[in-house]
């Protein structure tokens, strides 16, 4: 190995991550479905952030009842109708975006923050560290993720935060497994060998050289996972294990409207469509990204 090949790899890392990001953008812009999905996702995130400003009636959206207006069909005044407590459903769908969309994004981020470093550690260190970490993840993955989350959520007591925590606990092992696989292949690369050769400490190698290179496979996996986690969160709320009434949440609203599905279908339909559209957007985008990058190639 010559001196130049020792210097070049460190530069290459930086170069590669910006190039990958631009690559992702160019892929998204060229594919109309992915572009549309991205726009939908950004739109919903904006709605969630500015819910109080956008919702026609934020107080009803947050849970204030309005008994004079119960079960009104969709009209100009209430585009999505009103529910059994007279609340404007459009407002509730808008206000419900935070627990239904932003919280799952937080769940996935936390799962990555826990799972990725462990995976890098396992893959880089190998030996008993690897064995220990992977056997623990195997245990978590032995349960159907949603079932595990349900059991933990109910053991902790119901509520949005607890449901989110339960989902983090059930989801991090997927990232450990993914990042470990990527790390195993990165470990053989010159820039890691070079860093080892000049005596860089292990945790610095993991932090500076390994983890930055796992970002794009993680990103692809996270996009697909977000759809699943939003569904899971909606499911927990639907069962009554997530957000508690009177707070708004799409899953909870579908559950509330279920009783009136044949006579006042709008109560369950609009929040249901909201979940479907957001999850569809994440899955369409994730599908395209996966075709281009395929994080599973590392497994």
């Amino acid at each position, binding site marked *: 190995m010559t001196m130049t090949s020792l210097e070049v790899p460190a530069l290459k890392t930086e170069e590669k991550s910006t190039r990958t990001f631009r690559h992702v953008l160019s892929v998204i812009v060229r594919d109309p*479905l992915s572009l549309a999905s991205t726009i939908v996702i950004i739109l919903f995130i904006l709605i969630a952030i500015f819910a109080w400003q956008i919702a026609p009636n934020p107080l009803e959206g947050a849970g204030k009842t309005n008994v004079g207006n119960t079960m009104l069909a969709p009209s100009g005044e209430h585009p999505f109708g009103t529910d059994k407590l007279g609340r404007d459903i459009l407002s509730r769908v808008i206000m419900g975006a935070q627990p239904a969309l932003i919280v799952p994004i937080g769940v996935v981020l936390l799962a990555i923050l826990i799972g990725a470093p462990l995976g890098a550690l396992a893959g880089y260190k190998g030996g008993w560290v690897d064995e220990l970490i992977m*056997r623990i993840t*195997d*245990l*978590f993955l*032995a*349960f*159907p993720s*949603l*079932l*595990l989350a*349900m*059991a*933990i*959520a*109910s*053991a*902790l007591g*119901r509520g949005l935060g607890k449901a989110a925590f339960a989902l983090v606990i059930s989801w991090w092992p997927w990232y450990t497994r993914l990042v470990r696989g990527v790390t195993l292949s990165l470990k053989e690369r010159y820039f890691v060998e070079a860093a080892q050769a000049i005596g860089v400490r292990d945790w610095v190698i993991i932090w500076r050289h390994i983890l930055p290179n796992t970002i794009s496979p993680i990103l692809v996996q996270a996009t697909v996972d977000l*759809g699943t986690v939003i*569904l899971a969160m*909606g*499911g927990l709320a*639907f*069962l*009554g*294990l997530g957000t508690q009434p009177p707070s708004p949440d799409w*899953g909870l609203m*579908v*559950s509330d*409207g*279920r009783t009136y*599905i*044949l006579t006042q*279908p709008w109560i*369950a*339909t609009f929040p*249901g*469509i909201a*979940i*479907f559209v957001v*999850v*569809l957007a*994440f*899955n*369409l985008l994730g*599908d395209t990204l996966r075709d281009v990058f395929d994080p599973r190639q590392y497994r």
Partner: protein
Amino acid sequence: MQKLEFILRRLLSSLFVLIGVSIMTFFIARVVPTNAAELYIGPKARPDDIARVTKQLGLDKPLPVQYAIYMSELFHGDLGVSLGTKRPVLTEISGRLPATLELLITGMFLAVLFGVPLGVLSARWQGKLPDTAVRILSIMGVSMPAFFLGLVLQIFFFRDLHLLPLAARVASDLRFTSPIKDITGFFLIDSLITGNWAGLKDVALHILLPALTLAAYPIGLIARMTRASMLEVLEQDYIRTARAYGVREAVITYLYALKNAIGPTLTVVGITFAYALVGTFFVEIIFNWPGLGQFTVRSLLGLDYPAIMGITLFGAVGYVLINLIVDLLQAWIDPRISLK
């Protein structure tokens, strides 16, 4: 010989996972709740009651001892008594299992029935219109929450078209007109072997919507996986050779390629079984299906700890077993796997 070794290794690792799973369920049900004894009795627990139950449940003993007691009870088939129904958890689970399994298996059957051909179609017309259509359809399938799809199907097929019943496992008057004799607990089979045609028709009509709701997610996954593995197989030399010999494309696709592409699809079927198992929870609620899912949700909400523990354990064991079966099946279909 290698095959036997593979099977033994696989069985052993499953056993380890099962032990770990039992530790985890134990943790969730006994350690995570801050005061398990209080939860077991209910909100109106008096201090002396709590003390009594703490002793009764062995909660005052060290954790390893508690776990040992719990495991020995488990090996005697004792999962405890449900707080909600006051009957043994095992009885509750086994009594409701046939209804859930019938729904689950019918759903997975529909998923394979639609998913595999859709995937093959997609692969054969790669990049063309059918491929795009199947792609969008499958992604829609995995994006639709089961608890919403069920409602949409109810509106459409029951309210608007009057084609299918709204909910339940059989019509309420069926037990007077042509009652189903409970032999296996699977009503489709029971009505079939007793020649109860009116019953069979009723059961089939009732299971269609819930099974379809359940199948949507697996259909999407199976179609995508079949497509991917078909594309991989279609690139291989023996397919090219077959083409060179002038074998018809249909024969190549359905006979030569599909046979070798079915392995990875099988894995996905195994994985989706777990998704579908949890999916039954939602489907059973919406379609008022008297199975395990309804019981699970009631236990989760009612903080029925012995039941939650039993069901979680049961679900994990089922999941581990399905994965084991899939692996063994694959080794049987494709001998190269057991050599790895």
